[in-house]
């Protein structure tokens, strides 16, 4: 949206380009149909192939069935995750943005650590810390001379802990951003009108924070519905993602029906989120000046706030610390003690000496790179078509593009299994399942929306008069696109690329269902295999590599952002 409030301008295309753009549109539609919508429909068709037409869907309404149990389980876990992640996220956002105390800046940096936590290894670290025979249960058991199993977080509790500590950033980021944008004068106006501190919170601040809280809740709910790794490791089997994965090969029509229901729920959330994004974001304009943070004076409050901040950030750092510690532990050495007892450099030496140790890393980077290259082509083109042209049907493109963002990885993978188990035109007559290409294809589908989104938001901030100025100065459409539009949205594209790459390096959920053979296994599968045979040290070592790759990408992203923050006003 341009500053003047006029919707972003559309560019009139010259006639010669109209043909080209029709061609582009055709290709886009084919790609989206072939790889996104088509596979989803294939799954739907597969689910109808049972005895009666809708027979696979009837059990969802029957309270005793496994399908119904899994659906309720998924919804229940998601609901609880929203509550607990919400409490933690909102509390931390308010604590770190409204009050001032020692090391606040440091906490603010640490609070986002969960974003760098690799999906599989991160959950495993939580398990090793808090799960059965984990570090904390053992310590507490020794302390109180009790059975350590009594202190272990298992099943639902474990999943909730993981969800809380990995998903609270959804709340934290949106609430913190809203707090940073909100204006002191609103609070001051409330005080001056006679409201007490409490009244001001209830009547002004909380209502103002409702939109970011709802946004965080929607995202958390959606991610919890899609969560697969945490239920898998904490052995909670009655959730939809696990049910799909477990039945993908054996009872395909059952798995199809579950996938379709889960997809429907996700799509509903996608629609709600998209509708919500445009509405009810309160912006206030204040005249410069710095925001006040409340300096804490009461020593008791000081101690309490400090302890809260310390404990919560400790909880966040522990999993990463555990991965690093494990990476230096001897395989099979950790049996009964709270922490690994023998340490070694062996894992690292192995990584640099054994010839195929690098293969998973190479595979991950390579597969992500292939997927991202395709995703850039698709995402950027779609974003430009949707934002800047007047073609009919671009709304459909918008929805189709965002669909895979909403679908759980499990569902995306399952759709591909159903669609590409047979040769099809979109797989050039090949059976893709079992080949190298199925994994980059899944990544491509999952990550295109990330690039589409970030490019779209860059494009919508682009003042339409810039392109018009270029045209008025005599530039052709392609020159103005190349020399004006592209340089200005480069930051947005780069941001999407890096996000997609991070997601690719950590991807586990879809990969575990699709990866073809040992030779082509990417990082997270290698980690999974090592974990399954008990070589935790080796697995953690690869986990550290994941963390480092993610960090490298984050640093790179910062630099790109710094360089591309060209502000233009209109």
């Amino acid at each position, binding site marked *: 949206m341009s500053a003047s409030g006029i919707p972003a301008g559309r560019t009139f295309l010259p006639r010669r380009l109209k043909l080209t753009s029709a061609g582009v549109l055709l290709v886009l539609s084919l790609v989206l149909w072939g790889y996104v919508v088509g596979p989803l429909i294939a799954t739907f068709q597969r689910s109808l192939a049972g005895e009666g037409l809708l027979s696979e869907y009837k059990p969802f309404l029957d309270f005793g069935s496994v399908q119904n149990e899994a659906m309720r389980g998924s919804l229940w876990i998601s609901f609880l995750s929203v509550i607990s992640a919400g409490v933690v996220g909102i509390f931390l956002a308010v604590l770190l943005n409204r009050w001032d105390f020692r090391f606040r800046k440091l906490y603010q940096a640490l609070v986002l650590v969960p974003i760098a936590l690799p999906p599989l290894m991160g959950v495993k670290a939580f398990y090793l810390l808090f799960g059965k025979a984990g570090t904390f249960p053992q310590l507490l058991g020794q302390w109180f001379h009790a059975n350590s199993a009594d202190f272990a977080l298992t099943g639902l509790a474990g999943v909730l802990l993981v969800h809380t500590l990995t998903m609270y950033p959804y709340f934290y980021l949106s609430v913190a951003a809203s707090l940073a944008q909100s*204006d002191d*004068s*609103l609070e*001051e*106006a*409330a*005080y*001056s*009108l*006679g*409201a*007490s501190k409490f*009244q001001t919170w209830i*009547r*002004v601040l909380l*209502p*103002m924070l*409702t939109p970011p809280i709802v946004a965080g809740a929607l995202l958390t709910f959606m991610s919890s519905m899609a969560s697969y790794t945490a239920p898998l490791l904490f052995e909670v089997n009655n959730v939809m993602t696990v049910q799909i994965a477990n039945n993908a090969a054996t009872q395909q029509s059952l798995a199809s029906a579950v996938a379709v229901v889960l997809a429907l729920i996700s799509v509903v959330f996608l629609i709600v989120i998209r509708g919500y994004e445009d509405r009810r974001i*309160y*912006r*206030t*304009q*204040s*005249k410069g000046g710095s925001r006040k943070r409340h300096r804490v004076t009461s020593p008791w409050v000081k101690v309490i706030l400090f302890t809260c901040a310390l404990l919560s950030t400790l909880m966040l750092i522990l999993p990463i610390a555990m991965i690093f510690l494990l990476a230096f532990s001897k395989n099979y050495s950790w049996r009964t003690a709270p922490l690994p007892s023998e340490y070694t450099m062996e894992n690292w030496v192995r990584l640099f000496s054994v010839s195929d140790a690098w293969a998973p890393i190479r595979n991950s980077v390579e597969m992500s790179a292939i997927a991202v290259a395709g995703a850039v082509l698709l995402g950027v083109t779609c974003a430009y078509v949707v934002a800047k042209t007047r073609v009919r049907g671009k709304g459909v493109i918008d929805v189709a593009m965002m669909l895979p963002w909403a679908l759980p990885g499990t569902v995306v993978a399952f759709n591909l299994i159903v669609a590409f188990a047979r040769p099809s035109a979109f797989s050039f007559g090949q059976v893709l399942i079992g080949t190298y290409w199925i994994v980059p294809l899944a990544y491509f589908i999952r990550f295109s929306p990330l690039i589409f989104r970030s490019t779209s938001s860059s494009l919508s901030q682009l003042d339409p008069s810039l392109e018009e100025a270029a045209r008025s100065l005599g530039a052709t459409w392609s020159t103005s696109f190349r020399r004006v539009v592209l340089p200005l949205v480069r930051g947005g594209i780069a941001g999407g690329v890096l996000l997609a790459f991070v997601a690719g390096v950590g991807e586990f959920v879809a990969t575990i269902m699709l990866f073809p053979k040992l030779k082509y296994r990417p990082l997270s599968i290698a980690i999974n295999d090592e974990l399954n045979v008990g070589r935790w040290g080796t697995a953690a070592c690869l986990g550290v590599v994941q963390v480092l790759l993610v960090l490298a990408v984050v640093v790179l992203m910062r630099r790109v952002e710094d360089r591309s923050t060209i502000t233009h006003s209109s």
Partner: protein
Amino acid sequence: MDELLGSEHQGERRQVTVLTLDALSKSFQRAGLVVDSVNLRIEDGEFFTLLGPSGCGKSTILRMIAGLEEPTSGRILFGDRDVTFDPPNQRGIGLVFQNYALFPHLTVARNVAFGLEVRKTSAEEIGKRVTAALTQVQLGTLGAARVDQLSGGQQQRVALARALVIRPHFLLLDEPLSNLDAMLRGETRAMLRAVHNESGVTTIYVTHDQEEALGMSDRIAVLNGGKIHQVAAPQEIYERPATRFVAGFIGRNNAIEATVTGLQNGNVTIQFSNRSELTLNSGQRAPGVELALGKKVVACIRAESLCISDDGPIDGILADIEYAGSGSSCIVQSNTGDLKIEVPTSVRPPSRGESVHLKIAAPAVHLVEP
């Protein structure tokens, strides 16, 4: 009245008559001393303006009166009551912010009702007073609208109604016109005056715009660098500035350095650097300016008090001319420095580069300390 509100001190304005600032100072960690020992007494029902350039401390004084900043030292008295450290919600003041600070999640009527709701006023009473307040600011029909549907001028009036409806002891206005365009500014000024006359509420108005200050106020305090330079009625501020700063800040003004060369019969003669002399009544000076032979003073001469005249003692060349309808504003490069003059349209306008002679209307000259 008090029974009506059921509140002891949360804003029932007839009880409090005078606002006193007693040696009020405020220093910030970074900016240092922003308000420097300010003494002020604002009378009941007055329209009082704090005028000064940005950063002069005027907004900080207003925020201290509102209770949004705590003074570093000094006292604030509402009548006899010391409110220096009272929280803002117990002061009973109505504050209108520069950016209006309307609650975006509430309708216009709910915004106005806010102060009454937190005072637990009865619903019936709230309804009556909100309607009255909205009518007073000519927004009677917009109660159900969302605030982001309103224009800037309308938002401004909602903010005013919201502040007035609680019947505050004092109405505080922080540059309320600075976000409006010129047309609306004129209208809103008229409305502010009307509201003030109607309600009789003591109003404290902060602005950097001298025209607003001169046009609206009963009295003005001119501030610079956290210090009060002058407190007086608009006409006196304009005609008899107390300091060189006030003289320069208000109106188009020339400050010319001069030396006292003669003192007799209640008259004073001053000499400019070009040796030309001027004799004035010795009363034409700011309080505190001591007159003695050889003393350096600054003669403040308004642009409209300089006129082009062939027998004028000051020679110069017309360097720039700007037509402004009722007259022309000119810059003359003279042997006493660059001078601003106003030439009425009735006089033949000189053209650029022409050499001119300037005469000073002696009764309009005012002496201040250099």
